[in-house]
């Protein structure tokens, strides 16, 4: 009997005990009618070949382990970055349970959102009553200052019109006349979560800006984009901007919402861009996006309103941070403070200290388009080679932009860009053209296991490691954290590959 009260074994070890191994072998042999061991081995080997890779890359219809989510997730995340705002997703209710779970699993924090709980009758007659009743209940129960409405694909397919529904609900007294209810249509069958983020931000801005007179000032708006590291990153960003003495408004800041303290009370709402600041942001001189591919429509809208715009790709590392800092300084008309010179120098110093372990390392990088761009750039900065750059939600235009980035450096020479491909494609790529390191999120752990490529978890979602998102990746200080995360995986692998005493431990070095 393997189990005991003294040493309780759970799933991590229990099923390796002989009793369970024998039982599972017996189950397989007598009850499962499995494919033969030989067939499994043969197919397993076949999936590692170029022939399989070609068939895999020729897929046109099925998506296998795609690294993207759907629009409303981005909209719910976006709404979480505004003061006392409740997300209201119009459509089927199961979707909202999924978004909330997804965000909670990553942040290890509460994630609040409501659904209009449409069912079969609403599919036939439309969801107007669900909107009317739903807004009234949300307003009464959860005391929000703003309700941000987005849609599931059910509401989109039947063609519910948010604007008229919301006005109807207002007329019926579900919410006060002046209550703020921005909205965005977020069909799941178009784009991905990064687009949902974009249209919800635009929806919020339209709600506050349309019909208002703009009287320009010297402030800068900054839109961070969909970022699972917002907790660490936004705080770092604000620190840098304060250091520079820039007058700014972060448009959408979920850093406090997804990082509330444990002190005995549950805060449904925390932090976020105030509604007053959001409205006043119309007058800003410029709107700067930290993630171009998350904010295309938002930036167009800001430009329409007469603001200067600029966008970045999730600035990671030295060069990307330099560009951000210089652009902000230029827009705001401030000097870059000496403190940033020091921070920059420290990051460069750290990279120099570790360059021998980084130079020539090959990487596969996947994630959202801006992240992949940023990471490829950082890798090349350290002398690494971003061999495979993959974004399931990357477009043709993204692919071209990536090609331009890669051809700007000798370290990008052999690199390939994979727009629209998924993680089952990536598996084939890593078997046929292996790399040293894989950069992505928790979903990468299957490819990592199958191909033996160490996984560096640096982007949303990270379910199976805790608290990474609390530390910044952007800026010079964030760069140190990023660098250390990469190096830890490199050093851990070196040690793990040489940790059998008397056999493989010749270079089990104390100092590296």
């Amino acid at each position, binding site marked *: 009997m393997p*189990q*005991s*009260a003294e040493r*309780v*074994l*759970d*799933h991590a070890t*229990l099923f390796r005990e002989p009793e369970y191994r024998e039982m*599972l072998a017996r*189950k*397989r042999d007598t*009850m499962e009618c*499995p*494919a033969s061991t030989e*067939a499994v081995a043969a*197919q*397993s080997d076949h*999936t590692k070949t170029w022939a399989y890779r070609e068939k*895999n890359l020729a*897929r046109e*219809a*099925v998506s296998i*382990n*795609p690294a*993207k*989510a*759907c629009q409303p997730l981005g909209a719910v995340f976006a709404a979480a970055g505004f003061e006392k705002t409740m997300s209201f997703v119009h*459509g089927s*209710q*199961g979707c909202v349970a*999924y978004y*909330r*779970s*997804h965000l*909670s699993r990553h942040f290890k924090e*509460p994630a609040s959102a409501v659904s*209009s*709980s*449409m*069912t079969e009758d609403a*599919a036939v007659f439309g969801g107007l*009553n669900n909107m009317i*009743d739903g807004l009234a*209940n*949300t307003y*009464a*129960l*959860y005391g929000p200052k703003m309700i941000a409405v987005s849609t599931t*694909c*059910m509401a989109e397919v*039947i063609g519910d019109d948010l604007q008229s529904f919301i006005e109807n609900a207002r007329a019926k007294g579900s919410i006060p006349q002046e209550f703020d209810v921005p909205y965005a249509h977020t*069909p*799941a*069958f*178009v784009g991905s979560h990064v687009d949902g983020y974009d249209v919800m931000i635009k929806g919020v801005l339209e709600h506050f800006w349309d019909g208002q007179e703009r009287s320009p000032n010297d402030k800068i708006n900054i839109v961070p984009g969909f970022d699972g590291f917002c907790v660490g990153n936004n705080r770092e960003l604000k620190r840098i901007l304060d250091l520079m003495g820039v007058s700014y408004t972060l448009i959408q800041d979920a850093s406090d919402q997804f990082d509330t303290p*444990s002190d*005995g*009370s549950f805060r449904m709402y925390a932090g976020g861009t105030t509604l007053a600041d959001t409205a006043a942001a119309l007058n800003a001189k410029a709107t700067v996006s930290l993630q171009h591919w998350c904010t295309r429509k938002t930036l167009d809208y800001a430009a329409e309103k007469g603001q200067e715009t600029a966008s970045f790709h999730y600035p990671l590392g030295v060069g990307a941070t330099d560009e951000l800092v210089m652009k902000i300084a230029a827009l705001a008309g401030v000097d870059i403070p000496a403190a940033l010179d020091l921070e920059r120098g420290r990051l460069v110093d750290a990279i120099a200290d570790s360059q021998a372990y980084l130079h020539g390392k090959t990487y596969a990088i996947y994630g959202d388009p801006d992240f992949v761009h940023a990471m490829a750039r950082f890798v090349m900065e350290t002398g690494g080679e971003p061999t495979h750059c993959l974004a399931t939600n990357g477009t043709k235009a993204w692919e071209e932009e990536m090609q331009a980035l890669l051809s700007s450096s000798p370290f990008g020479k052999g690199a390939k860009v994979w727009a629209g491909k998924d993680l*089952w494609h990536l598996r084939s790529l890593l078997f046929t053209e292996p790399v040293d390191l894989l950069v992505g999120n928790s979903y990468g752990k*299957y490819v990592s296991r199958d191909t033996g490529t160490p996984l560096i978890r640096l982007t949303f979602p990270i379910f199976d490691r805790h608290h990474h998102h609390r530390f910044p990746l952007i800026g010079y200080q964030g760069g140190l954290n990023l660098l250390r995360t990469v190096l830890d995986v490199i050093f851990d692998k070196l040690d793990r590959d040489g940790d059998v005493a008397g056999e493989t431990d010749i270079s089990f070095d104390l100092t590296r």
Partner: protein
Amino acid sequence: MSLDHENDAAFNEALIAEVLSAYPDKFAKRRRKHLAVAKPAGADADAAPGEEGHLLSECDVKSNVKSIPGVMTIRGCSYAGSKGVVWGPVKDMVHISHGPVGCGHYSWSQRRNYYSGTTGIDSFVTMQVTSDFQERDIVFGGDKKLAKVIDELEEMFPLSRGISIQSECPIGLIGDDIEAVAKKKGKEIGKTIVPVRCEGFRGVSQSLGHHIANDTIRDWVLDKKDTGFEPGPYDVSVIGDYNIGGDAWASRRLLEDMGLRVIGNWSGDATLAEMERAPLGKLNLIHCYRSMNYICRHMEEKHGVPWMEYNLFGPSQIAASLRKIAKHFGPEIEAKAEAVIASYQPLVDAVVAKYRPRLEGKSVMLYVGGLRSRHVVTAYDDLGMRIVGTGYEFAHNDDYQRTGHYVVPGTLIYDDVTGYELEKFIEGIRPDLVGSGIKEKYPVQKMGIPFRQMHSWDYSGPYHGYDGFAIFARDMDKAINNPVWGLFDPPWKKKDAPVLQAAE
């Protein structure tokens, strides 16, 4: 059962009145019917339906009706009930999330249905396979794409034994004929293809998805081929055990040790063959009644296979269930069951001796899904803990009837509870532990109340069987007696520190 305490009915009634006061009138009235305090059982307490044993209370709430819009229901949808619960764990089939990318993405690898096998080669549980609908698929229909998806899956995964098509919301709205595609392609590739109409807008919760999934097993899996299986006298199928954290394996050991042959496990770690042969079994053992009673009733009617509910949480129920199951097979199996129970008694005694003193008298509130809101009650009771409130996301009336066998009068009962209600109930009752899901975990913990996820076992498990009971006891102890709960107040603001016990 030592469920001899009583909960404070008057206090709980007041709590209900308080939460309802926050709603607009129309909805206060509707929610009122879903909230109740368990009443003392009536005169016919010993002749109650469902599981055997004395009825302790009556849990009379309205259930299985639409959620109110805008209230933060914790429920999911039909797709979650079919793909997420019933079909997803079948390991040698590829399950297509048919429609846009999100549903399959959020449910990817999240239910911890353990399985043995080589993922992507002969097993496919922890994969997200989707037709990733684009606007053109909505406009022009997705049937052609679906046919192509199936062809490509054959190319990628030739060792799969079949395919299920899990419909997402748009499928039913745009009028696709997935049944026709399934029939045609099934013939072409010579494999089982199951079309499932589990669009998320159908029904009011996960529950209809379970039912629809059961019906598709009936219509597309059973009686479709000669399984070539040689039945034996002690063949049982385990139904409604999803092998979360290995639950079904901890259960299987006990059933095998008492001389039974488990010819299939539905659907955790299941292969298609295990499901196909179930009609040849002697008895269907059903753990999650809510999600799979339909197929048991079908096999009873059509194939004459009787079914029996059982409960493998905690030693009291394990012993009672093993005896009940053994009785069905006669003295030889009964003797073996007694031997199994006896062989584990020292483990049970040691676990209870170690953990009961650390947990005695602690109060628990539960809010889970299909069976655990009642099934785990006695496991807590075995450790000296008492349930002060419980409720279900998607139960039906027969579940609440069965709940009366487990909870005492005065217990707060909440059906399809809203985020607002649950928070207020927990705030009011301040139990020592809450067992619910990921969406509830962090709000509760921030209130300073220990919490365990009771869907995923909070990444632990198994909790079934004797091996699982030891883990269950350890986990509850870890949750309640962790020192972190004493760190909430800064020393300069300190109130009374809770009494903690160091880990042993």
